[in-house]
């Protein structure tokens, strides 16, 4: 009803300020333009690298907070967002599906949008949000009840609001959307029970679905309102009708490689978790898939964990780069503990190496890119515990939260290294005959995650993709759950659950600067410069996410960490900038 009214209001309010509009060309050069941050990953290739160097190894000691903003409210629980910077405004999302627009110089709030979530919702995948997208005059973000919403960036008014999937069937949404050629591209998130992963593209203007690509074989795709093609080949790698509820949610979003005009999305683990019910590779779960952004057709795939059985989602970001010999390559660090190099053109396997210690589920990766399984390390079949006995305990490394979870790595164009926020942990898994669901018996499994080492779980690892060596690592007591960012100033920034935002030397890992934010940092740092050439840095703070929810023994170890919800913004004060000159 009030669409017209809304449009008029938005128009009136927009007129005095709206000159600038974010275009496809702006998004395409987001990695090079230093005065704004328009995409998740600081460029759609997600390298998280800034050419700025006012803050560098020498000056970082002068970095001080400029302002801090509290998300407020009673609800906190995990702030994993990456802010966007445009036209003097910061757009940042908070837990429980909130969006804030802040004056970028002062932190003053311009508007706030709180999504109205349905009564009784039980979001599968925690209440975090990993950030918004910006295009035209709109801010786009996804909600816990699996909707994608466009807000007017000047007023916060809702422009359109579309359902991605039905939250009552176990779907949710937490990733930052990706914008390519005027399409808003999203994955989905889902629980263990009965969901199917899909990538969808909508018209940024009105939210109309343009194409849809389910990621599990046997499901039909959609293009312009009609069936397009089937994903894969029916029953090629799935038995019976298990594919109908095959999981594979691409819950971390994706990369766009403009060089090859390809969307690259990672897919979650196949469902159900009990692999004995679905013997086969289970395509395209636990994979990376390359998609045509215009049609949603699958161009290529690379499966990191065929016949996955340990909860090793394959969702991790894929970062395009050029290696030392000038080859176009893709890099990705999988939850399964291996770091992969793929060919940029077709996703084919080039090389792999373990990036965490003591991997037990596979002894390595063969020359075709397939894991060499250790069969005795596959979790048992719960049907074997139908006799009522608790099954044998299997110790598997990495644990189900992965050698690397969602937290993004960064690629430094300065050093040519990847900086991977990794975790060293394993898990005990056993068949649990005495499990119940909704009043009924159920064949379940017990899991508990445990550290590998006494003094650390987190390990920031610098990996040289040319020599496939770990150049250095920086240990952290608690698990690392924050993305990394590299800069031309020779620094790598990342946060820790202990509350610090840190800067390390990109060549040797020496900690050059750190600041205590008051709650755990599990967000995604960014940097930009203002019109006066001053470099700024921002990160959200607020402990939460999957570790306290599912971390088993590790959750006990980090139980002392306090929740929070704020944005911290830093710069070198004018006086110190002047004295340096």
């Amino acid at each position, binding site marked *: 009803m009030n669409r017209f009214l809304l449009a008029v209001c938005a128009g009136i309010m927009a007129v005095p300020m709206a000159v600038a509009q974010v275009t496809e060309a702006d998004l395409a050069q987001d990695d090079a333009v230093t005065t704004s941050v328009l995409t998740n990953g600081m460029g759609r290739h997600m390298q998280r690298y800034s050419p700025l160097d006012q803050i560098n190894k020498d000056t970082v000691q002068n970095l001080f907070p400029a302002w801090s903003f509290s998300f407020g409210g009673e609800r906190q629980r995990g702030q994993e967002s990456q802010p966007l910077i445009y036209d003097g405004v910061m757009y940042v999302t908070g837990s429980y599906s909130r969006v804030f627009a802040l004056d970028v110089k002062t932190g003053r709030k311009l508007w706030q949008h709180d999504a109205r979530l349905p009564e009784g919702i039980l979001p599968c995948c925690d209440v975090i949000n990993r950030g918004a997208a910006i295009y035209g005059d709109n801010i786009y973000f996804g909600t816990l009840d699996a909707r994608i919403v466009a807000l007017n960036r000047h007023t916060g008014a809702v422009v359109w609001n579309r359902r991605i999937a039905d939250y009552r069937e176990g779907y949710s949404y937490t990733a930052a959307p990706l914008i390519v050629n005027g399409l808003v591209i999203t994955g989905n998130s889902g629980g263990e029970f009965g969901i199917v992963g899909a990538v969808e593209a909508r018209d940024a203007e009105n939210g109309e679905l343009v194409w849809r690509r389910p990621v599990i074989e046997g499901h039909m795709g959609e293009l312009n309102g009609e069936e397009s093609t089937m994903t894969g080949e029916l029953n090629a790698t799935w038995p019976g009708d298990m594919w109908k*509820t095959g999981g594979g949610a691409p819950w971390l979003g994706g990369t766009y490689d403009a060089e090859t005009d390809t969307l690259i999305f990672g897919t979650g683990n196949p469902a159900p978790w009990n692999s004995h019910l679905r013997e086969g590779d289970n395509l395209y779960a636990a994979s990376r898939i390359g998609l045509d952004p215009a049609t949603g057709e699958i161009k290529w795939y690379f499966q990191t964990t065929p016949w996955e059985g340990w909860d090793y989602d394959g969702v991790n970001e894929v970062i395009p780069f050029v290696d030392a010999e000038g080859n176009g390559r893709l890099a990705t660090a999988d939850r399964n503990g291996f770091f992969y190099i793929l060919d940029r053109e077709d996703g084919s396997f080039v090389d792999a190496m373990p990036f965490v210690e003591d991997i037990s589920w596979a002894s390595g990766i063969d020359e075709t890119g397939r894991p060499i399984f250790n069969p005795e390390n596959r979790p048992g*079949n719960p049907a074997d515990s*139908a006799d009522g006995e608790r099954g044998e305990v299997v110790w598997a490394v990495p644990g189900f939260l992965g050698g690397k979870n969602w937290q993004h790595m960064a690629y430094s164009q300065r050093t040519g290294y990847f900086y991977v926020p990794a975790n060293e942990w394993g898990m005990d898994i056993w068949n649990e005959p005495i499990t119940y*669901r*909704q*009043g*009924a*018996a159920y*064949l379940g499994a017990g899991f508990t995650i445990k550290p590998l080492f006494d003094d650390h779980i987190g390990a920031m690892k610098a990996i040289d993709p040319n020599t496939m060596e770990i150049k250095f690592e920086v240990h952290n007591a608690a698990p690392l759950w924050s993305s990394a960012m590299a800069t031309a100033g020779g620094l790598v920034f990342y946060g820790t659950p202990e509350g610090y935002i840190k800067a390390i030397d990109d060549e040797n890992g020496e900690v050059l600067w750190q600041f205590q934010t008051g709650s755990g940092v599990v967000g995604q740092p960014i940097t930009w410069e203002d019109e006066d050439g001053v470099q700024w840095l921002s990160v959200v703070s607020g402990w939460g996410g999957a570790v306290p929810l599912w971390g088993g023994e590790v959750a006990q170890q980090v*139980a002392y960490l306090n929740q929070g919800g704020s944005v911290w913004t830093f710069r070198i004060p004018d006086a110190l900038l002047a004295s340096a000159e």
Partner: protein
Amino acid sequence: MTLRTSLSALVLMTVLTLLGSGLFAREFPSDDSGRDRVGIDYDEIMERGFIEIGVYADFAPYSWRDSSGALVGVDVDLAQLIADGLGVELRVIDLPADEDVDTDLRNYVWRGHYMGRRVVNVLMRVPYNRELDYRNELAALTGRYAQERLAIAYRVSDFPDEPPFPGSFQSRPVSVETYQLADFYLTGLPGVLPNIQRRRHLADAIELMRAGEVTAVMGIRARLEHYLRDDPDFAIESGPLPGLSIGSWPVGIATAFYTARMLSYEVDDILTAAVRDGRVAAIYAAHGLSWDEPQR
């Protein structure tokens, strides 16, 4: 002040001191959420005059919303029986199930959910098993009122000689509700997987059988009875299930352990009496369902 009240005051003070000193910290959640006591006990419920009882949402024939939106079913009637037994008003709340009962106990009985939902005083249809009880030490599992069992519903004309047994489905198509015990059990039997049609809801599996696409549906007996009770073309068999030791289990109620222990005793007394004098069986019968006495 009598000796007795001053003694109990001393005990109370000691308990409060221990609480304050964090010695009781083990009973609290492992994250930093507030350490307020959640839930209330018997005296407060009696004083305020109503009790909040949680049932599973959309779970016929135990608890679901009829066409007028009213919450009905066996568990709703049993909740009324509990409220009447206590002499308080009933407020019944339908709750979505999470991934397992342990999580439901945490969300609805002793901590509350992080989306902001408060706990209920009593949660219905909680299975009883010693291991489940032990590992959920913040919930009191008691008041067993029925015995659940797996069964096979089938079209009589498809099995004229004898009712089907699990091995029958090596050659005959069967449907199950996805991710339920029947699904995992049949999927694990040799040669059965290709003949299983899995459906998200039991009602959809029943429709497949009515349409003749499968010969049988396997699931919880009372739920099968609910859909098929007036149809002479179908029958329900609960014979032996080879290799499955958990084909039958008792269900009861849960309350918070520390904050509502007295309530759990009272509710247990009410339900135990109703089991013995036939009122629970009558409620099942009124819904057209058979009932078995819970194993203690």
